């Protein structure tokens, strides 16, 4: 059976939904950040899959997305460490102060 673009899109959608569920339900911020990575990867898969139909632009964009993911992970984890130092927790529902 030929593997078409649609197959890839289904995988990407599955990853996206899993990521969304992870962001919404988990308490641990580290895992929420990982779920965001999952979502970004789903997007990437879509971009690369479509690049097979419409040219290389999708691949180039997926590289930008990876760059963004790196920046997001670095800043997110930095905030997390700063927060953890002060509150000794990484649970999202306990992060309820604007200033600490």
């Amino acid at each position, binding site marked *: *059976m030929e*593997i078409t*673009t*649609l*197959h890839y899109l289904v*995988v990407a*959608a*599955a*990853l*996206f*939904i899993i*990521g*969304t*569920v*992870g962001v*919404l*339900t*988990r*308490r*641990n911020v*580290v*895992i929420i*950040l*990982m*779920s965001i*990575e*999952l979502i970004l990867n789903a997007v990437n*898969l879509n971009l*690369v*899959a479509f*690049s*097979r*139909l*419409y*040219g*290389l*632009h999708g*691949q*180039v964009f*997926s*590289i*930008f997305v*990876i*760059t*963004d*993911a*790196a*920046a997001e*992970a*670095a*800043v997110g984890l*930095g905030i*997390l*460490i*700063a927060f*953890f*130092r002060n509150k*000794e927790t990484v*649970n*999202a529902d306990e992060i309820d102060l604007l200033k600490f």
Partner: protein
Amino acid sequence: MNPVATPYFFYGLAAVAVLSAIAVIMRRNPVHSAIALIFTLLSLAGLYLMLYAPFVAGVQIILYVGGIVVLFLFVIMLINIDSMQREYQFNKQWLVALLAAAGLGVLFVAVYVKGQAIFPQHAIRFVEEKNTQQVGKMLYVDYLLPFEIASLLLLVAIVGAVVMAKKRI
């Protein structure tokens, strides 16, 4: 060279990707989640290779798996406390999550059903041998401005991360 056994590879990689993704959000121990994330990312790199995007696959491995996940693991080791694993891992938003998941699922199905017609039926056959060169050219010619902005973003991210994580500035 013609690919062999493509469907099997695809299904195998897709299964690994999705199952590990589920493990990412289900595991109690964040380190296990991170390891599951590695499997997802690696199988996605495999899928990129199948899509004739070797450069993106290489970047995926070297940046995501070699860089970002190492960062995740590093931070988990810094803040992993046993007591945290004994707490409730999920908050009470399961209803919201279910709705969101269902909504997204419906949306995707709708898009696929509607959009099937507008996808070109035949894929472009890329010359795999020159993929890197072509991507490079595009990055530096067509997408020069986004490229520079991305570099600026990374600089800001470096500064931000250092400011955030440093104890005393």
